[in-house]
């Protein structure tokens, strides 16, 4: 009895909750028969166990495992794990692992090794069965019937599906990184990228692996660059979820820690460059792309190098620094070609086409677009193939070679319609781009229909409304039809100054009335150095002097387009003033 008092006194004196919990847990385990104790400790290593897993963990107890498993299930800290057997309650498991790692490190690693062996064998044998099944269905081109049959097979074979599931693959890597750290790090990094690059990527699988690895990191069981990769992929997930602050923090932390892994250091800087691009912080973006470029080059990683150059090209293009952009696209093109990254090659060719077109070098532009189109065609990338065909058509039209232009437009239309027919997720873009093409061809009713389809599928995306608004405002005599679409844009993004500006402009044009609410909102949300839109706003408000002051400043911006200024309905109220021609230049002939 006194000893019990002593035990309770110890419990009271324990400094931490973990210490308190461990005292009773350990006493319970110590009181179990020796073989059951062994099984308890081993069962803490995996996240779940069944008879097979317990046998793999404790081959020396193989003959007794059935009985020991039954006894294990009766312990207060063992619970059921859906479809997979049982698990040690996480509170107890964490303490058991802490104890094992600290006191019996060799045992911990050898148990992990046993599990690696088990999972490897299980994955290999079951993958073979599944692959055999799959080949048959591949031969049938995954017809409706074949997929139905395959689903039935999946439902009837939960053991096989469980064995090769992503959860099992993640579990294998979780143990591998302890059993064979170097192999484990490589495997985890590879698996991270597989999830990331998968056409059916969902954050859940990547997050699940990240969490598993975090378990080891928090308990100081692993060190080195794998910690950086884990953080890096957390950043990737934040980036895709548009949580740019957290993405920035993750990438910066990786960079700050200077892990001895060239690719990690380069990748983190490259991704950070993209975060800053999205945040319109172009100076920082450029700095990180350049840093990444040097690191990729040092690591002799041509793909990384090409991607950095392409991203720098895009960055300069967005700033209308065309000659710099052109130089980068010209540099990344042969790199992509050398390493046979054909989509990178096509994208570079397309971008070069755009630059030459902007510089009115139409012949060169057309050649680039044609080359890009051919690669997209090879890659079965119908939308980009169609986009190229549209622009090639535009270039022919520019030189009044209308029959040739129409031929390309027809090809583009056919390609968009093929994508739409496939009913894939990219049909939204196909509808939208088809609307754009049909508008160009003055088939306004069909264009309206295509635009409306893309809005119908993607109604919460503000940019989907732009094409139809443009159609009503600039290509019909019913600009008022754009008003409900603009209202919708404001509903999606209440800070949309362009939509407020457009509503004010159309209302003034139709009703000769100035809508104060929209004017105020446009004024509130317009960026302070957006001189062109400020000029539009003051033009609508009849503040002529201010409008010209801003317009003059706008002409110094890289992207200023004088021919658009002559057509922009927002500037119609100041166009008759002689100052307009003086600032913008003479009206273009066409």
């Amino acid at each position, binding site marked *: 009895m006194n000893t019990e008092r002593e035990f309770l006194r110890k419990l009271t004196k324990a400094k931490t909750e973990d210490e308190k919990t461990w005292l009773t847990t350990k006493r319970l385990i110590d009181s179990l028969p020796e073989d059951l104790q062994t099984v308890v400790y081993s069962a803490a290593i995996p996240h779940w166990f069944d008879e097979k897993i317990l046998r793999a963990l404790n081959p020396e107890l193989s003959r007794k495992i059935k009985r020991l498993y039954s006894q294990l299930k009766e312990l207060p*800290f063992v619970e059921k794990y*859906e479809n997979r057997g049982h698990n040690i309650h996480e509170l*107890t498991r964490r303490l058991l692992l802490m104890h094992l790692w600290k006191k019996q490190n060799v045992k911990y690693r050898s148990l992990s090794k046993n599990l690696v062996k088990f999972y490897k064998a299980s994955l290999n044998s079951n993958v073979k069965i599944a692959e055999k099944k799959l080949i048959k269905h591949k031969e049938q081109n995954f017809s409706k019937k074949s997929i139905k049959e395959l689903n039935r097979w999946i439902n009837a074979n939960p053991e096989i599906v469980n064995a090769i599931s992503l959860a099992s693959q993640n579990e294998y890597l979780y143990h591998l990184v302890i059993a064979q750290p170097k192999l484990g790090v490589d495997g985890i990094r590879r698996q991270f990228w597989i999830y990331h690059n998968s056409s059916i990527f969902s954050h*859940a*699988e990547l997050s699940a692996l990240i969490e598993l690895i975090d378990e080891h990191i928090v308990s100081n069981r692993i060190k080195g660059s794998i910690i950086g990769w884990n953080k890096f992929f957390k950043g990737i997930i934040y980036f895709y979820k548009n949580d740019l602050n957290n993405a920035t923090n993750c990438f910066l932390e990786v960079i700050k820690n200077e892990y001895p892994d060239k690719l990690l250091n380069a990748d983190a800087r490259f991704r950070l460059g993209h975060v800053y691009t999205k945040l319109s912080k172009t100076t920082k973006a450029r700095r990180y792309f350049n840093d990444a470029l040097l690191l990729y080059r040092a690591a002799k990683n041509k793909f990384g190098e090409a991607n950095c150059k392409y991203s720098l090209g895009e960055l300069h293009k967005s700033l209308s620094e065309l000659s710099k952009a052109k130089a980068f696209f010209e540099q990344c093109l042969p790199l992509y070609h050398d390493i046979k990254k054909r989509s990178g090659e096509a994208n570079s060719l397309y971008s070069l086409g755009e630059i030459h077109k902007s510089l009115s070098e139409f012949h060169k532009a057309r050649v680039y677009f044609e080359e890009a189109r051919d690669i997209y065609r090879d890659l079965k990338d119908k939308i980009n193939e169609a986009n190229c065909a549209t622009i090639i058509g535009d270039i022919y039209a520019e030189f009044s070679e209308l029959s040739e232009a129409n031929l390309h437009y027809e090809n583009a239309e056919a390609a968009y319609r093929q994508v739409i027919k496939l009913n894939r997720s990219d049909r939204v873009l196909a509808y939208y781009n088809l609307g754009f093409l049909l508008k160009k061809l003055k088939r306004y009713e069909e264009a309206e229909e295509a635009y409306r389809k893309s809005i119908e599928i993607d109604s919460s995306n503000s940019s989907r409304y732009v094409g139809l608004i443009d159609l009503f405002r600039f290509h019909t005599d019913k600009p008022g039809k754009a008003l409900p679409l603009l209202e919708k844009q404001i509903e999606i993004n209440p800070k949309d100054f362009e939509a407020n500006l457009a509503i004010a402009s159309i209302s003034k044009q139709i009703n000769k009335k100035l809508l104060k609410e929209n004017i105020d909102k446009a004024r509130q949300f317009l960026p302070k150095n957006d001189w062109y839109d400020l000029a539009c706003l003051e033009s609508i408000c009849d503040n002529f002097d201010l409008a010209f002051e801003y317009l003059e400043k706008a002409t110094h911006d890289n992207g200023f387009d004088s021919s658009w200024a002559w057509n922009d309905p927002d500037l119609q109220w100041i166009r008759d003033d002689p100052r307009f021609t003086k600032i913008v230049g003479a009206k273009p002939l066409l």
Partner: protein
Amino acid sequence: MTRQTPIDREEELQIFKEMVSGKTEERILLIEAQSGMGKTVLLGEFGFCKPKKIAFAKIDFKGGNTSIAELFSRLRDKLGGDSKFPNLGKELKGILTPTIDISTNLMFGKNQIEAYLTGSDEQERQIRLSALTDAFFADIRALGKLLLIFDTYEKSDESVKKWLSDSFLSRAQNSPNVFVVIGGQTVPEDNLEWDCIRKPLKGIPHSHWYKYVENNGIIIHVEYIRACCDIYDGHPLKMKNYLDGYHLKGGRA
């Protein structure tokens, strides 16, 4: 060896029973507690003592890995399969993209829903998810009374958390035949779109542990039970470990 005895959660069981028999306005029950407080056992009890004629599915997010697609799929399977979900099937119609590619990346077992929810960007995914959620609720509204229990909410993927706490619960609020229980170390935060009963679990008082030792044939002085219960604030897992350990030691430390 002592048997796992359902722990004393009479108050919570009463709240649950009243909710599923329609005596409370709320049809959403959130059970929040730290690890080892007996949430899973309690949620298991809910499944056990629910009215017989109510359809029922329980999902445990333990282990992560559950994407929204996977969640839809598991719910559909547990609630009667394809034939009970005609609207969901209609929404997925035409999605034939084979998503099973084990030769390159071992993605075997991915389902049709996963393919449907794989859009080119986040926005596209959200649109599809919304359409799928509407179809799913159209189907479950036709199932009669239905109880859905979600356990280990804190381990669910961020996108699943967001979906459950926004789209799912707001639609459940507007589905008079649907009852939802969510348990976890964290649970969805309050939202104007839905009402709920929020029940944090506390430690189990001394009196229950006296019954526990009696039922399990453990001979121990009440003074020790009281002392341990005070040290652990009645934390169920820690108390059980203590009492079972004491018992197995033959009453000697």
